[in-house]
């Protein structure tokens, strides 16, 4: 078992009001030593990756994940529901179709919410 576990870190809360997305990213970084966690932002967590937001306490996590080639995915449906578009978000994240979000969740062995 172990090594092959498919872990999804699911960010669902917006940033700044709570530490949830920051701690979720920190967890993705932490478990990346043993796994290849898939980080996905849905609902209000999409705001975590707005271009203009203050990322002082989580920019390093984004950069770390990027450096080791781990993707941060953002749910297209959530982006649209918030009236946002690709241009509003930082380049480090990848917007994917909602069906792909569902697929990643259904294929996961473990989903951890933040």
């Amino acid at each position, binding site marked *: 078992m*172990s*090594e092959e*576990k498919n872990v999804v870190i699911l960010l669902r809360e917006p940033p700044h009001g709570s530490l*949830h997305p920051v701690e979720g990213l920190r967890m993705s970084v*932490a*478990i990346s030593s043993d*796994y290849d966690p898939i980080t996905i932002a849905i609902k209000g967590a999409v705001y975590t990756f707005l271009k203009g937001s203050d990322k002082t306490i989580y920019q390093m996590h984004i950069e770390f994940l990027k450096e080791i080639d781990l993707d941060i995915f953002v749910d297209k449906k959530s982006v649209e529901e918030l009236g946002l578009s690709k241009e509003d978000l930082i380049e480090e994240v990848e917007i994917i179709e909602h069906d792909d979000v569902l697929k990643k969740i259904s294929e996961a062995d*473990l989903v*951890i919410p933040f």
Partner: protein
Amino acid sequence: MGKLGILFFTGPYQSQACETVCKIANAALDKGHEVRIFCYMDAVNAVLQNQKKIEGVYNIEEGFKQILDKGAIVRLCNLCLLVRGTTQNCISRECGDIKRAGTPDLAKIIELTDKLIAVC
């Protein structure tokens, strides 16, 4: 028997999460399963000493002492404790296998357990 991991994020009393964690851990231990718990964010405050007993309220300190006594392994996010200023208050290691740890220990818990649940 199985190996169960439990991750939680919330401090005691305000929300039900700590009580739920104790009750799930208890049930799993009673069935002979191994239980590993990671206390993240406010959850580190679940294991502080001298929590006063109130009639009708589940005492979280006692809950944790009980599951530690039954063999639960508890890890506390060290940074979360330091930031909150509660490092010195934790229940002692005489109560069981309880230790400060880093987030990579969660990776270890994922590896060492069959299933991991998160209680929000």
